[in-house]
């Protein structure tokens, strides 16, 4: 019953190929097989949003996918957001400057969710930001800072494009 399969996948621009049990979730694959522990696991049943990754550019909960399902696909995790090791993404800078994180547990999911959201909606209202992060729980209840950070990041990214 411990069937295995080889998965070839691109994560943060790097190609990986690993043999894994078919029942392994994508989240555990990223964390335990690839060592990318930036993706956090809060609830493991699709409620908290901490494990959100981008699958071919679309946000998805990695605890609700199997590793074997991402064969041939491209994944972006929180480790792949910053443009380089010594430079943060404008969204990350905005989180730092607006007190957008306290314990940091929900941050990877907040960032990946907002990367997709701000790409599709570069000039959102506060209400739209709140709906966008409604699937991500912050148990520090630091939503105010997160919302401010998202709005600030949107502005920084708009200014950078102008």
């Amino acid at each position, binding site marked *: *019953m411990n069937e295995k399969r080889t998965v070839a996948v691109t994560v943060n621009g790097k190609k990986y190929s690993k043999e894994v049990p078919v*029942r392994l*979730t994508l989240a555990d694959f990223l964390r335990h097989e690839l060592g990318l522990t930036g993706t956090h696991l809060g609830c493991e049943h*699709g409620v908290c949003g901490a494990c959100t990754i981008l699958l071919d550019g679309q946000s998805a909960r990695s605890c609700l*996918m199997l590793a074997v399902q991402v064969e041939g696909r491209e994944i972006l995790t929180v480790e792949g957001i910053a443009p380089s090791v010594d430079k943060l993404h404008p969204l990350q800078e905005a989180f730092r400057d607006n007190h957008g994180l306290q314990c940091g547990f929900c941050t990877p999911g907040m960032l990946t969710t907002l990367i997709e959201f701000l790409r599709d909606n570069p000039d959102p209202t506060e209400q739209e930001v709140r709906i966008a992060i409604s*699937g991500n729980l912050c148990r520090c209840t630091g939503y105010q800072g997160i919302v401010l950070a998202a709005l600030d990041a949107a502005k920084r990214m708009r200014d950078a494009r102008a």
Partner: protein
Amino acid sequence: MKPPPFQYHDPKTVAEAVSLLGSLENAKLLAGGQSLMPMLNMRFVLPDHVIDLNRVEGLSGIKESGGVLEIGAMTRQRDIEFSDLVKAKCPLLHQAIMQIGHRQTRNRGTIGGSLCHLDPAAELVSVAAAHDATVVVAGPNGQREIKFADFPVAFMTSSIELNEIVTAVRFPLWAAGHRSAFVEFSRRHGDFAIVSAAVLLEIDGGGKITRASVTIGGVAVAPVRMTEVERAITGQTPSADLFRKACESCRAIEALSDVHASSDYRQHLAAVLSRRALERAAGLSAKTSVH
């Protein structure tokens, strides 16, 4: 919180999927995974085989022909959300989609998966009931169609056979310019509704209602079509008073009681939300839905 061991199958065609389903014992179909994966992680289900439909060709897409909107079973909720065709021709479906889960779950969740899972409070299940949808299924003997009224048979159980899979859902479209509203009450945005109301109305040039569909979700094992309300308002001119009186009959629904809400409260919500949905559809109230 890890899935139990199972054998994994990823067929490429509907025929292959049907043949696997017919030959394997204790198999589960995996669509978008937004319900089955949590159930696997929590070990509420222990299948010996998981048949993943994500690589089956030809199960996705939205098209209209002959006044019917056909949506492939594996079409993601996201694709329905962003479909201009759905927005223009089937606005009730668009409004309902916006209340399903979150962006991250709509990106994966499918219409066929939601209908087969058949949660009593699921938004898509209510829309299918409201629109008198038809579910298209494929089995070893070919295709057949199931009227949505005959689709739910018990709590989270549909009338599809064990060796059949849903391939598409057909929504007969209402007249151009018809009105609609989807209103639900839940504790948090994105949660399943405690109670929802889906309304479709056609109003003629003289301002009279010529056709009505009123569906209450979340109160019983399957959405309830309130034919009594539909009859009471058809032929009438929309007014707050008409809707309030007509919707009182929703209090008679034999409602579920659970940890989220008592049956009394659900009956109360059914009457209130159906009235609000009717008022909104008829343009008597501009208020947006409650979350």
